[in-house]
Structure formats: structure tokens, C-alpha cells
């Protein structure tokens, strides 16, 4: 049984910016449902940062909360400055694939390496949607986009596996078809500390689907369904078989001291040495 729920209490009364059929609605709704299920009556304990791109509009200005809509690619370093000076608030970063692992990739890696205490939710629509559908670092090989009219000649980046390698405490990937898993994953991540990364493969019928050969949003979701496999299934497949598959599941779940904690130790050491001098 699904508990009746309205996201309205968390939202400003501003018209959502997304196209019809966009996956952004589902991600926004799922996040707020997770927050609701965790018992937060409002978003006061959160601070949201986002960059530039369609999905950066999920929190800003729509969430009734503190939000910093940063430059393209800089949502994570802005979150770093906030989290270090305000350890008491929960930082959540929303961003697209271009924002987080295109222009902002190095911040993503370094924040994971430092174990910055932040949850990054990356909506991966495999394209630069807001600018009209140009190729992204996540665009599948051979896909037609506005800047790869003959099909993309590059291989896509696996952001989830990269996050694991870089040192993230929690990494998961879901799609806009596996919303229940996504919601549970968000709840898990919100209860944890450290660098947490959730990638949501999402449909962009307007800027991606149109050129890539999908009739509409539903066609894209069907494509997700036929191509989604679990981490377990993926383990039994060859690299070649894995191309064009969407591997979903929890990639890692671990715990280690956060940047705030390691910094605090450093501050204590500095004060101890200062007192000795």
C-alpha cells in the first residue's frame, strides 16, 4: 500500500521548468517522497546546490529551502565551502551528467577523494539537454546528437564506477523506471555520511530521444527496461555484452571519516601545537 503523499509542502508555487515526459519530474518527486518518509516535515536541515542544466532546476528555485544555483560545473566546490563552514546542515547536490561529470568532473573526483559529506544526485539524460541536445560525456557510442550528426564517436563515461574508484562511501545507479529502488536508495544515502553518489538514468525525449530515434518518452522508458540489468547480472557478462546496458544497483556502501572530521582533527592538532609553542 502506498501512503498518500503530496510534494507540495516542500515546493514553492512556481511552475516546473521541465518538458512533457521529462524524467526530472520523477526524480524530484522521488527525492521529496524519500525526505517525507524519513520524517522531515520541511527542508530546513538541507542546503541544496546545483549547477547549470535542466536537472539543476530541481531544487532551485522550486524547493522551499536554501539553495545555491551555482555556475556550470561548480555545484560541488560551492557545496564544499558551505559544508566546511556549516557542518550542521545536510548538503545535497543536484546536477546533470554534463554538469557533474563533464565540466565539473574534477570536482566530482576530488570531493569523493576527500570524502566530502554530501549527497550528489546526478540525473543522467545522456545529453546536453538545455542547450539543445549536444553530445555529452555519457552519450552512448554511435548515438546521434546535435553535435554528432553521424553518431557519437566517443565512448561514454561510467560515473558510478568512477565514484567508487575515487573513494565514495555510497554509490548507486537507478533509472526513472526503478523509482522505488531510487527512493529507498536516497533514504539510505540520506542516513549515511560521507560522499554519496546516486546516478539516475533519465529520459529526455526532447533533446535526446528526438535525434536518437525514440518516438516519445514511453519509447525511451521501454528502451531502459530492455537494457537495464542488475550488478549481479553484469558480473556474468563480457565487456562487449555490457556496452549499451544500464547497470543498476548499489555499487558500494562503506564508511570512513568525512572531510569535516579529518579537518577537525587537523584543527585540534594545530591548536595543540599552538598551545605548546
Amino acid at each position, binding site marked *: 500500500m502506498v501512503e498518500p503523499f503530496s510534494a507540495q509542502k516542500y515546493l514553492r508555487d512556481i511552475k516546473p521548468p521541465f518538458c512533457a515526459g521529462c524524467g526530472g519530474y520523477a526524480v524530484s518527486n522521488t527525492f521529496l517522497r524519500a525526505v517525507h518518509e524519513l520524517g522531515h516535515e520541511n527542508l530546513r536541515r538541507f542546503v541544496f546546490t546545483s549547477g547549470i542544466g535542466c536537472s539543476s532546476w530541481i531544487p*532551485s*528555485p522550486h524547493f522551499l529551502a536554501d539553495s545555491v*544555483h551555482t*555556475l556550470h560545473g561548480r555545484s560541488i*566546490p*560551492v557545496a*564544499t565551502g*558551505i559544508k566546511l563552514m*556549516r557542518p550542521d*546542515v545536510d548538503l545535497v547536490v543536484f546536477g546533470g551528467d554534463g554538469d557533474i561529470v563533464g565540466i565539473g568532473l574534477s570536482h566530482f573526483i576530488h570531493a569523493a577523494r576527500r570524502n566530502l559529506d554530501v549527497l550528489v544526485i546526478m540525473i543522467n539524460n545522456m545529453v546536453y539537454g538545455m542547450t539543445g541536445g549536444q553530445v555529452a560525456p555519457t552519450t552512448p557510442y554511435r548515438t546521434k546528437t546535435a553535435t554528432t550528426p553521424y553518431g557519437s564517436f566517443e565512448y561514454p563515461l561510467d560515473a558510478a564506477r568512477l565514484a567508487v574508484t575515487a573513494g565514495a562511501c555510497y554509490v548507486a545507479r537507478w533509472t526513472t523506471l526503478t523509482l522505488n529502488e531510487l527512493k529507498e536508495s536516497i533514504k539510505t544515502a540520506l542516513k549515511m555520511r560521507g560522499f554519496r553518489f546516486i546516478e539516475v538514468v533519465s529520459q529526455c525525449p526532447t533533446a535526446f530521444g528526438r535525434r536518437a530515434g525514440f518516438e516519445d518518452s514511453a519509447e525511451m522508458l521501454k528502451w531502459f527496461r530492455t537494457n537495464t540489468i542488475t550488478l549481479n547480472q553484469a558480473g556474468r557478462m563480457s565487456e562487449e555484452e555490457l556496452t549499451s546496458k544500464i547497470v543498476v544497483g548499489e555499487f558500494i556502501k562503506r564508511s570512513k571519516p568525512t572531510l569535516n572530521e579529518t579537518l577537525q582533527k587537523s584543527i585540534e592538532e594545530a591548536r595543540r601545537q599552538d598551545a605548546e609553542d
Partner: protein
Amino acid sequence: MRVVTKSLITKQLFNELFRFKGQNLLAQISRLNLVPARKTSLRKKPKGSTTTYFWQGNEACAEAALAVGCRFFAGYPITPSSEIAEHLSKKLPQKGGIAIQMEDELASIAAVVGASWAGAKSMTATSGPGFSLMQEGIGYAFMTETPCVVVSVQRAGPSTGQATKCGQGDVMQSRWGTHGDFSAIVLSPNSVEEMFKLTVRAFNLAEKFRTPVTLLADEVIAHMRERATLPPFETLEIIDRKKPQKGEKAFFGLKEIPPMPSVGDGYNVVVTGSTHDEYGIRATADPQIHRQLVERLNSKIQNHADEITDCESYKIDDCEIGIVAFGCTSRAIYEAAEVAQKKGIKTGYLRLRTLWPFPDSAVRKLAKRAKAIIVPEMNLGQISHEVERAACGNARVIGLNKIGGGELVSPEEIVDKIVKVSKENG
């Protein structure tokens, strides 16, 4: 506050410690005009019990940041500014603050902006190449009215240029480096003492006007060591940003300088670099909202130009030849003016402590008196164009430009120019 080296090192001891090519180093430095010897009388002595420190310029900057209450530093190593990061990395944690080395300058300025929204006075330090990378972030800080301080220690550019050598080629970058309609506040120190004082002022202006402020130093001022005589730090004037009253909602308008909440304090503040209304809500197509916002962001600085601009002037209302200079180059003008005076040429000068907003009225005053204005600078002509603009044709403006190898414009070179120009004037 412990003093690293007070005036314990006497001139004599210093000379004994550092012998250089058979001559004493102080004499060497004096010859290079790094110490404004005999000119200290021109400076105002601070009241109250002062303390004299022996600091490097970058160290003075870092000490000022600590004194003024800066509690967050993010930066990326770059010569000749790295000592600021090093000093703050040691001292900030002792005060419970945070200094962090980010992955690049883009992240540094972004983290500084984030920390400022979290309520902390924050700063970064860099040099030309890093300053270039920070320009977008500086524009973001301007648009979002985020107080922060960017120290840029100039070296010889363009590009990697001469990384360890002094230059003054980033004057226009500090004014126009970011895109769009922007107004800059840029301060220019010419001594170690001023590295301290102007860092304090940079924070105060940033907090007062809710805007990024640049301290545009140069390699010579940042790396030289000299005395800095300062009043007790408790007596420093410190300005903090205006916080909102409970229930206030307009953090981006209605007032010339709106109050600034911190994130996490329950104000539901929406910060965005897109055009936004008084409440922070994006309005990316409305012409009126854009005009209102961007005109206010600029006028809140330009309307207070008289309050912000600051020059040291000498005989500007009674001179034949005027000099306008800033930063390390301006250390040569004291001697040059004195020598020219002895040669019978009435010489006055204007030494700029603020580059932007440009001190139009002071330059205009000088231009009305002087027949010619000489502008020595370590670039191929930047501030001279501003002098020319402000002079409005009232005086001839002559550049004295020198670049490369960190070679300073010497007092002799300025005197030669003064003599030559004076002859031309007839």
C-alpha cells in the same frame, strides 16, 4: 598574537646577517628602491601603541586576514602568491578556521563563495593565470552579492610568462576580466604595511558592499620583507555584513545593499547567478528586472566611488609635472619627485591605493594643474589610458612602460622622463 620578528633585528644586525657581494643588503635593497628610505616621514604614524613587525608582504596579507576575522581560505598554489596559502594553512586552524587547497582555481573561488554563504569571511589568493580562471567565479560573486576577497599577486604575463618576476599587467583584467556589466573594487598596496592595511580594507569593503573585492598586489610587494608598524589589532575597524531581521525576505534588492542571510539559518534563501528579482527568484527574460538588478549592482559601487577611492597625493595642486603610479612602481616616485624638485621642476604625484573605481576626481585635479602627467607602470600601458580619460585633455599623459625580468622602473628613469617632458613643455 605572537610577533614573528619584531624590530629585534636592527639595521646593523640585519646587515651583519646578510652580506651580499661585499655590500650590505639593506643598501642593495635601498638602491633598488625597495625601501622608501627617507620617505617614511610622508606616512602618517598610527596613533596609540603601535607594534612593528618584520614581515614578508604575503605574510602581512595573511596576518591581516586573520586579524579581520577571515575564517575560510581556499586556494591553489601559484607563484608568487603561495605564501599566503601556506601561512593561512598554518594559522587558520589555530583559530578554528579552515584553509583548504582545492583542485584548481575554479573550485577555489567556488568554495570561497560557498563559505561566504555559510556566513564566513572568506578569501582566496592567486596570480595571473589563476586570476584568469577565477573570473567567472568573481562575476558570480558579484551577481549573487557574495562578499569575498580575492588577492591576486601580479607576475609578468601573458600566459605563464615569467612566473617569478614582477609585472603589473592585470590592471584591466581586474576591472573587466569577468563578462557582462560589472563594477570592480580593486585595491593596490605599495608596501608590506599596506598589504596588511589594504587586506583589512578589502574585507571591510566586501562586507559593506556585499561584493567581491580584489587586492591587486605584485610580486615585489608580496615577496619583499620590511617593517610594518601597526596599531593593536583590537583597534582595527572591522565591518561585518548586515544580517536580515527575522521575517525579512528580500535578500537581493529593495535596498541599495540588501541584508545577507546565511544558508542553514531558515531563511529559504535562493541564490542564483541568473538574473533574479529581489527575492532571488530567477527572471531570465524580463527586461525590467534585469535592468533593475544589474544597474543596482553597479551603482551600489559607483555611487560610493568617493568613499572607496583612496590616493596618496603630493603637491598635485602646485606642479608642472605630475606622476600617477601604483604598486611597486610607485615606490620610485618619492625619490623621483624629490630629485626633480631639486632640479627646479615642480613635481607632484598621485599614488593610487585603489585602482577601481578609478579616482577620476583626483586625477582631474592634477590634470588641471600639471602640464603633463607621467604614468610609470610595469606593463605596456594600462592605467595610463584611465589617466588620459580622467585628464580630459587638460594635461598631456605620457606612459613610462617597462616589462620583463621583473625590472622595476627606477627613480632615475622617472627623473629622466620628467626632465625630458619639462623641456618639451618649454
